[in-house]
């Protein structure tokens, strides 16, 4: 344990995990700092940025802890990003949105702010509340015999947690699905109209976009255009290849062909030699 109170401009905020039947009392360290972004400059900020928040934290937990530090520091909301990657396939360094990647036009335009993994943004009811919390924590760290607040998470644990029913309510789910579908169709409709508008638009070269009925989105059409172009090129290439031409008419052709075959054979032989040499290095010829 360390009595470090500041690290890289962050205030260290230790909380206590109480001893349990199997574990000793332990200190957990959070690192906090005023939350400042481009849209919210320091003067307006009433949030704290918290690094290393305990797993599964809820707004209630946070409220309790800040309440214990300073009575007036009332927390309004909490935004966290827990590390949760069961199959070790998620990359928290990257922002991957499957909607955006599969159909860019369908993406919601509003950009979500992303909290880094293991961090949280705690928003207080007002600026004084936040300042109160921050100074109380600093005071606590400076005290000679500090009494750190206890962190007692709210979530259910043990068999209750892991044997909870996962059954989804069909009515609720149906509503949610319907809602999502309606939104999707609206967006689609908008795009269709946009596309129709493009159809009537004449560009500077005097062309208009031809819109078929089979694919519903702009991307669908432009994408297929692009692919068709690729295909055309390929076809040209294959045509060139297929050009009727006798391969073994002239002597030089036969000679060339033989030479090629010979080289092939030789290359393979060389490769094999190399492989055997490698195997020998690995002592693979020692009978086990």
């Amino acid at each position: 344990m360390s009595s470090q109170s500041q690290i890289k401009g962050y205030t260290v905020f230790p909380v206590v995990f109480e001893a349990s039947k199997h574990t000793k009392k332990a200190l957990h360290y959070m690192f906090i700092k005023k939350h400042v972004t481009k849209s919210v400059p320091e003067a307006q900020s009433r949030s704290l940025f918290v690094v290393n928040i305990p797993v599964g934290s809820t707004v209630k937990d946070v409220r309790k802890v800040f309440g214990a530090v300073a009575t007036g520091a009332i927390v309004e909301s909490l935004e966290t990003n827990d590390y949760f990657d069961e199959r070790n396939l998620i990359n928290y360094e990257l922002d991957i949105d499957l909607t955006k990647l599969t159909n860019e036009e369908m993406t919601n335009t509003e950009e979500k702010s992303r909290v880094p993994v293991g961090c949280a943004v705690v928003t207080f009811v007002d600026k004084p509340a936040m300042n109160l919390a921050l100074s109380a924590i600093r005071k606590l760290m400076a005290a000679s015999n500090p009494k750190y607040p206890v962190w007692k998470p709210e979530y259910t644990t043990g068999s209750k947690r892991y044997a909870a029913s996962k059954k989804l309510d069909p009515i609720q789910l149906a509503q949610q699905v319907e809602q999502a579908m309606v939104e999707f169709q609206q967006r689609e409709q908008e795009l269709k109209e946009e596309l129709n508008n493009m159809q009537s638009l004449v560009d500077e070269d005097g062309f208009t976009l031809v819109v078929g009925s089979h694919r519903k989105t702009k991307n669908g059409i432009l994408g297929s255009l692009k692919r068709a172009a690729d295909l055309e090129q390929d076809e040209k290439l294959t045509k060139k290849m297929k050009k009727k031409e006798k391969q073994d008419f002239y002597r030089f052709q036969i000679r060339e062909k033989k030479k090629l075959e010979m080289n092939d054979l030789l290359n393979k032989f060389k490769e094999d030699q190399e492989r055997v040499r490698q195997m020998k290095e690995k002592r693979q010829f020692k009978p086990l």
Partner: protein
Amino acid sequence: MVKRDRESESDSDGVDAAVQNVEVVKRPQKRVQLLAQDVQAARETAELFKSNIFKLQIDELVKELRLKEAHCKLIERVLHRLYEVVQQIPQSEAFSLEQAEKHFAKSKNKVAIPFPDPKPTAINYALQYQAPSDVSLVGSFGLKTGIQQPDGMAIDVAVTMPKSLFQPKDYLNYKALYKRAFYVAYLADQLITLTAKHHLPVRISYEYVNGDRLCPSIRIDSISPDKKHPDDLVFQDTKFKIRLLVGLEYGLFESKKLLPDRNCIRIQTEDELPPTPLYNASILSSTTYKYYLKYLYATKKSTEAFRDATALGKLWLKQHGLGSHFNKGGFGHFELAMLMSALLNGGGESGNKILLHGYSSYQLFKGTIKYLATQDLLKDGYLSFTSTIGDGSSVYKKGGFNVPTLFDKTTKINIFWKMTPSSYLLLKKQAAETLDLLNDVVQDRFRQIFILKNTQKYLHYDTLVSVPLKTLDQHDKFGSIERIMFLTYENFVTSKIYRLVTRALGERANQVAVSVSATEDRWSVQKRHPEPEDKSVEIGLFLNASESENKVTKGPLHEDEENAVKFRSFWGSKAQVRRYKDGNIQYSCLWPANELAVVSILNYVFELHIGPNVRLEYSSSKFWKMLPVPLTSNAVQLIPPNFQSLKTSYNELCKVLNDIELPLAIKSILPASPALRNTSTILPVPLAVGNPDFFNESIIQFETSTKWPDELLALEQTKTAFLLKINQHLAENTEYKSYLEKDETSVPYNSQIKTLNIISPDGYGFRFYVLTERDEVLYLRAIENSSEKQKKTVSDIYLAFNQKYMGSVKHHRAIASLSTHFPLYSATVRLFKRWLDAQLLLSHFSDELVELLVMKVFVDPAPYSVPSSIESGFLRTLQFLSQWNWKEDPLVLDLAKDLEKSGNYIDLISDKLTVQSYQAMLGNFAKVRKEDPQALKTQFFVASKEDLSGRLWSLGLSLPIATRLTALSKAAVNAVSKSLDSRTLKLVFTPALKDYDFVLRIKTPTEYASKTGLLLENKFKNLVSALPAVDDASGEQDPVGAYCRELRARFGNVLVVSCGKYTGLSQNGQTNVVAGLLNPVVAGSKKKFRVNLGYDVEPIDDDQLQLNRAALLAQIVHLGSDLVESVDLNRV
């Protein structure tokens, strides 16, 4: 052309030089010279060997096998000195038996005379030593065909007794053998004294030549003396040992008298005297040590590649545990070389040559193997040859003797005299398997043919039954007639057991091998014969998987009186008359359901025909007992009926689903669940909701339509809408209970996947995913649209999708058909999963990967054969994993392979692994390893025609887990190779918890234990109450899995979390462990302060952080709370 196949060091130099010269004249560039030479080599090898690489590999191997020059020099000096010593041995007087014994009793070495049984009591001829008429090197060292062997090579020196010591009739009644025994003893006695004097520090002992009890020899091993004299010749380091074979002059006895069908031991009996083939052959072969050396030498001279071919052959025999020794089948280097020589002189039915002198070493080897594999030398016919040098001929003759026969007409010896029908069939089988490998044109089989060893009995056979020799108690049946026929009690007993077991098992066993447990042939010169030991008879069985577990043995029809009598007398009271469905009334035996049929049968016939005290020890039944027993039945069946009931229920449900009216039609419903392909560890039991695999997954594919949204998450919503429709329909119109669940892990980043869980009226659970033809398009589009940085992660998303929706279905289809094709696959894979779970590994592997790993030993069994018992499958899987160097070798499976043998033409043309796809897979592997040479990302590369990428099922595996699997299988193979009893087996199934940093002992509430569908160890079936019906199974499942998954999800970047997948498999069904291993990189390092480290840290100084272990553990334990019973900290 033909002559120029081998290494070009000596002989082909001239030719190559000539070619070079021609080239030089034409185009005087250096590069071209090289080219011409190489082209020639490349061309030739492709023709004379299987392929270039095979030839190069063989060349290297042969080089590797050569004896070391320095060792040979040293041993030559030793042999010279030994020769001098032998020459100095003085002649003895002509002793009577008493005098001889007295002579040795007086001498200081106290040597005993190694008389064969029966020991002579009175003889009317003299025993004497006279200087040998010849001392010469014989055997493979003499022939210079010896190869390096890990346990050292034996150098045979033949000492020929002079003719003057014998009478023409001495071949009768052991006379010659007694004389030789004295000769051997005298020689040994003198050698002990003289070698010490001549600075040759050795230990002298007796040894039976190849286990032949009639033929003792002197074994000489080097020792290093305490005080080494400068002249002392010590050859311990070479690992060579010398055998002095005491032989007789060639042609000493009239060989006609010693033909295999003659009797040469006369005893008093009323019956006709039986032939004594073993005795006759033993005496005759003592006269031919030098003769056959000359014969083989002549072959070697006339056939350039003979030497290398025999080296290959010798290695092949060694790797298959075969040898000249009686116990090793009686077919060793000598027999192989003789066969090869005979085949070089003919061997066809009209005497046509099977092998040609110009063949390459590979061609000679393959030709011989092919002959062994395809020509029957037992029943159909035999090979007869003459060993006259320069005038050899050999011809295959019809009409066998029911003993394996390679008959030398010149010497009248059957070269295969030490072989039994059983050992011959075994050799034939192994040759046939090797021939298959040699004929494989797709994969490189060099390693399986020559490098991998198949000498462990428990891996070689399907089942090994051992019977302690003393419990057999057949001494009273071993009379004088039996003694002269079989020579030893052991031969007699093994032959009796062989006949009994083959008769009793009939169709159930493809092959039976009976032998006495290996013993040391060497013994002290102060004893007449080796001390009797506690030996046991080992019965190795190759089972016929489709027959072995048949619970009924059918006999002759009721009317067939003659055969009925035989049947009744063999089966005793078990033989009953039964009427069958087809109207036949047949004699039959019924075997109990709760035991392996093979075990029941052997126990019964041994008790009936051998005696009540006989004790049989099986390896099989122990393994079967490790399989989880379901509540429903404890019968031992290869494929339990539980699987069939589940399938029936599934098919009914599919019918119901197909009939539902939906806006878009269902195109197909395809299963992707272990229990539906017979591979689930825990058998499906109705309403056993506590089983983590209660729900069997399946993919519903809808018809193609342009109406599917062109965006992934919206598409998921549409799929959910379909599932909701089905859900509603089932609730309104059927007895099925169903509900929807979220699946957030199957495809990372796709948070909208829903599944439909259905519980059928008969109590089985099914889970459905929806697939449309747009899914794959969209995932692929996502890869296309992703940025360079994102590409890897997005590709992994696609792989995860492919796993869940497409790969799983293809895999299911492949495994389902193979699991019916290989009857033992199901049990093997279930046991292997059980083992993985016992070792806390199963939850790290996908079912599919485990199934493919086990499938390896079935579709690509070399150097073994296809497993036909649970233990052979299980142990060979472990053996394979312990040897698999996955950093360098891909695993490529030919999943259609054995269907080819089924003769199904469609399978044959459509599915077989082709050279192209094989090369493609190798190419993929090379690519993967090029990017990731240390196997940090991809460890196991397992490819098949279903998945050319080889990465599909090992996605998400980690280096520590892969390494641990290898280490654990090594440890298990090691433990089992020492002894295969119940204790070892238990040990193999016990996890090494000390290896983890911390271990949480888990105890689940009682209610879960009763719902897993498993019969607990101390409970009886009739005391178990029926399981209650449920509506919502999700709340009833074993909570440990979910706990472990959450720990993995939250702390997976800091530690590896392992747990038992099936709590129900613990002794009381309630205990489990969650074990954690800290990632050493994270745990041991200090990190600069960074916002998104992603794990619990504590500050240590101004700007550095380290892992906060105490807080980490506190959170882990807090999440588990009441599940955690205790915490063991090993290293935290």
